[in-house]
């Protein structure tokens, strides 16, 4: 793409950094929602370049990190059924469930496959009529249209051997849960660009008003992130709060109409338990009544006992912006990418893994106020 290199141009980055330094007079805490943004910020060393007054905290926008242990147990249970192929995005395989990970049951002989797209899973079902193919449909709003589309395609093809284990999560309810927390100290949000590409911006206006919190819809490249940070700091320094769109090359205010239609055709909004954050009302998608035969939970009568979260993992505090990865006593000791205790150490978009792989010790940890 013609513009992609420009968005990574070190000279451009420098201009933004200088401007952010110039206008910042007070300490501010900003949260980027999306794990892809966390990854980009840490990998490109942007956290080191910001003024010390600006504290970036890393939100819950990593689907791998927030998928609950109970749902991973469900996926593992399905994977172990004879004649079943459990398909998933790659990162989900290494996340520990209550006893094992999908990778471990795969090593024990279960048919677990890593796919790039749910549409490949539909093809797999078509090609293997004697197998039950289940797609582990995790993700935020960005991924929901593709997962919904897989159900619609399977329905067009009249497949009886395709279903999805849906564990979709939604950004705005999570933002509200974080802002409504009594310990909250977030002054402004960078909203997730591709989530807004799908859903548009309407849902965020009430949040801006209710919590008097600036929100800037932001992209993923270094220049995008820095412009998003600059726009947020400009608002904070001026004492105003509004919704702004940095990522206008991809995000329109009304979102993508076809994508929203596709989502609503297949999914209903319901309550969802988040790993680390607990139950958040109306914060997830589940397959609706019309497409119930594609809902793996109903198809296989899943009714497993709820699993306990690992108490040693403080990912909840990290995703609420109360702590940073290095403040976890297990970081880099008991918890490393090869042997993760918690999900944020697994995914490349998890804050703990990003810090482990890319950040150097010069990254300032905030003085804990807890």
């Amino acid at each position, binding site marked *: 793409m013609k513009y992609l290199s420009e968005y990574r141009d070190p000279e451009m980055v420098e201009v933004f950094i200088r401007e952010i330094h110039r206008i910042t007079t007070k300490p501010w805490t900003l949260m980027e929602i999306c*794990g892809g943004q966390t990854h980009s910020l840490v990998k490109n060393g942007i956290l080191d370049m910001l003024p010390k007054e600006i504290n970036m905290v890393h939100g819950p926008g990593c689907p791998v990190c927030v998928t609950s242990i109970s749902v991973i147990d469900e996926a593992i249970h399905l994977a172990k059924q004879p004649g079943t192929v459990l398909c998933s995005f790659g990162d989900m395989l290494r996340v520990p469930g209550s006893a094992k990970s999908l990778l471990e049951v795969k090593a024990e002989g279960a048919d677990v496959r890593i796919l790039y797209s749910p549409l490949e899973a539909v093809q797999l079902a078509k090609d293997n009529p004697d197998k039950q193919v289940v797609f582990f449909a995790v993700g935020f709003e960005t991924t929901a249209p*593709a997962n919904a589309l897989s159900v619609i395609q399977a329905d067009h093809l009249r497949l009886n051997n395709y279903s999805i284990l849906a564990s979709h999560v939604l950004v705005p309810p999570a933002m509200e849960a974080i802002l409504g927390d009594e310990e909250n100290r977030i002054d402004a949000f960078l909203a997730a660009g591709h989530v807004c590409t799908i859903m548009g911006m309407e849902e965020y206006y009430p949040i801006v008003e209710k919590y008097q919190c600036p929100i800037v819809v932001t992209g993923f490249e270094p220049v995008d992130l820095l412009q998003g940070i600059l726009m947020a700091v400009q608002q904070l320094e001026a004492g105003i709060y509004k919704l702004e769109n940095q990522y206008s090359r991809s995000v329109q205010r009304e979102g993508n109409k076809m994508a929203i239609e596709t989502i609503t055709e297949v999914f209903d909004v319901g309550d969802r338990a988040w790993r680390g954050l607990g139950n958040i009302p109306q914060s997830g998608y589940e397959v609706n009544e019309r497409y119930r035969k594609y809902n793996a939970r109903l198809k296989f009568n899943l009714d497993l006992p709820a699993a306990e979260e690992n108490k040693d993992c403080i990912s909840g505090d990290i995703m609420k912006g109360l702590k940073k990865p290095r403040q976890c006593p297990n970081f880099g000791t008991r918890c490393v990418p090869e042997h993760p205790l918690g999900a944020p150490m697994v995914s490349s978009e998890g804050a703990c893994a990003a810090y482990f792989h890319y950040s150097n010790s010069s990254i300032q940890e905030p003085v804990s106020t807890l």
Partner: protein
Amino acid sequence: MCLAIPGKIVEITAQLDDTFRSGKVSFGGINKQVNLRMVPEAGVGDYVMVHVGVAISVVDEDEAQKVFSYLKEMGEVDELNEELKSKN
């Protein structure tokens, strides 16, 4: 996982109905089959953002230039160019 990657549509390969509209999208020379249902307005030559095999938006080229015109407005780019020239 919400990452979407920009690519250029090089061919519309299937247009059976809305669900199955698909095409070949080039990512820096590597072609992949992509579902185009969510971008009915997109045609050959357009840039689309692709996420897990589905195009989710058409990249607006004018909007893509905005960030850089913003920098120009700040007068910073000229200043920077001057600086760079003097360095060379």
